């Protein structure tokens, strides 16, 4: 028994020594180049930023309108993605149905697809003359293209996979027997789901919502293809950045920095959430 322990301890020590080992020099150089490559564009942006006109530009109605539209649509998209994505993740994680692999591939396709392609696909299906879009218009009077709702649809389309993947992984990891325990205590399926399953995956759920939100906030290709570029209606911050680059580069740079600042804050917050989550799993 004690012999077993000695072996374990020396194993740990060995792996720690491996962990401390230095990277071979060529690999180290490549890693430094990679890190620099990520840092330089931000440095360039900071150096080129017209700091003097920062407040003036941020105060412009066009920028404020785009910022407000971006926040509204991205938050809505993240919540919609959670509303539909969590049940979908649950289905994919728990129910073994024929074609599950296909459904999972479909649900995550828009993550690897060029967003412009997603926009074209949305346009072909839900455009005013689209395969399904014409009925939406004829029967319900719902028009998606070139509307704020269309922006949200485009954002949900590209952002939901992040939530589905994150939540599905978490649902696979949790101990199902805890849900069994809840059932033997008299909890029906919905009570178990809302009071046991969801709280157990809370860190992953938050991470998934934040990831989806960040993706929705940065959405460009699908939005401009499907929803167009109308200030106040469909022109979100990324669209505004791109379009002002030609007319007013200073404004473009400041909007870009605004997006970076928002994303950076979210990324830092997410890192803590994720570490907190993994620590809980390991404990």
């Amino acid at each position: 028994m004690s012999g077993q322990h000695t072996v374990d301890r020396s194993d740990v020590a060995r792996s720690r020594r491996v962990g401390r080992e230095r990277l071979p020099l060529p690999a180290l150089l490549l890693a430094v180049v990679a890190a620099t490559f990520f840092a330089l564009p931000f440095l360039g942006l900071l150096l080129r930023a017209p700091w003097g006109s920062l407040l003036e530009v941020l105060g412009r109605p066009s920028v404020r309108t785009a910022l407000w539209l971006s926040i509204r649509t991205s938050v809505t998209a993240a919540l919609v993605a959670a509303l539909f994505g969590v049940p979908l993740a649950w289905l994919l994680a728990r129910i073994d149905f024929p074609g599950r692999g296909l459904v999972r591939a479909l649900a995550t396709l828009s993550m690897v697809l060029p967003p412009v392609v997603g926009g074209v696909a949305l346009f072909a299906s839900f455009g005013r003359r689209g395969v399904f879009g014409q009925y939406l218009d004829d029967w319900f009077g719902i028009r998606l293209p070139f509307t704020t709702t269309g922006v949200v649809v485009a954002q949900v389309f590209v952002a939901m996979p992040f939530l589905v993947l994150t939540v599905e992984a978490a649902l696979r990891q949790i101990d199902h027997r805890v849900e069994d325990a809840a059932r033997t205590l008299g909890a029906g399926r919905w009570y178990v789901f809302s009071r046991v399953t969801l709280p157990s995956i809370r860190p992953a759920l938050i991470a998934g919502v934040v990831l989806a939100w960040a993706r929705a906030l940065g959405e460009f290709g699908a939005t401009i293809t499907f929803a167009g570029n109308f200030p106040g209606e469909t022109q979100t911050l990324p669209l505004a950045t791109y379009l002002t680059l030609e007319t007013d580069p200073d404004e473009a740079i400041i909007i870009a920095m605004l997006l970076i600042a928002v994303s950076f804050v979210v990324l830092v917050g997410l890192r803590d959430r994720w570490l907190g989550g993994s620590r809980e799993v390991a404990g």
Partner: protein
Amino acid sequence: MTLHADVGLRLGGFHLDVELQVGRGEVLAVLGPNGSGKTTLLRTLAGLTPIDRGSIRLTDPAHGGIVLDDPEAGVFVPPEQRPVGVVFQQYLLFDHLTALDNVAFGLRARGVGRAEARRRAGEWLERVGLPDHAGSRPRALSGGQAQRVALARALAVEPRVLLLDEPLAALDVATRRQVRRDLRTHLAGFDGVRVLVTHDPVDAYALADRVAIVDSGRLVQCGTVAEITAHPRSRYVAELVGTNLVTGVVGADGLMTADGVMVSAVSDFVGAGFALVRPQSITLSRAQVDSSARNTFAGTVDDIDRIGDRVRVGVAGRLHLTAEITERALDTLALQLGDEVYAVVKATDIETYPA
């Protein structure tokens, strides 16, 4: 009230086929090795795994009975509607809830208001001796405390059947004895049907009135602890209770094994039977001795296992026997693994009984 379970189930290549009856106020221990199907049996009783064949019923002379599971009649009561409480292995407390809310969970799920559920949960925590841990998270509790919270959680909804899956397996040796004693007290306070699953004979003997031994999905033997210890009916059970069992055909002079080994014993019947050779009644010697003992089995030492001040020595020959001797005897004989020894037993020390 009695629990009648006739459980037939196929899981992949595994077959579970066990029939049990447990009365009110009785503690039945289901004892078996890992993978014998005992946890699956427990899950069928709780309704977490439906059975393929047989039935699970609760009968009550006063109120008639209820059928919990009967595939032939198309009856299946889901776990949340069964009057069955479960204390799971590793306890499976809800990590995101305090100890108090864990205990209150079942009441809340059954529609009891928050304040009332918490009040009753508080009473249960007091009953299991943890009134000071109401606000503790499960992670902050010791193994023994977590077990008591799990017990209070299961009992708070006042089930008629209490199932415990390996209630002591998650504990370290130091706390096990104390927790076992506490569990015994708490089990005594519940007057329904109690079924306990364990792989440890010590737990089964300490906590149960009756033991059902399950191996490879089948009921091997069922009876009181005294019955099983006195008359094991298979090699597996004999090993479990720590004795030697030889199977064969019993005649006037003793028992003849299928391999043709004669075990001299006194017997009052003829036919297929068992010979029970208690480890304490075996004498080991280095040389073959002339004595009144009728049985001498030559073999080599293949196991030396110290248990307190006594030593169990395995002797492999035409029969495999385990002898229990004192440590001083072992030292005097200077026995080592692989040594040639003779295991000597008096015929009058061997008990025979029909198969």
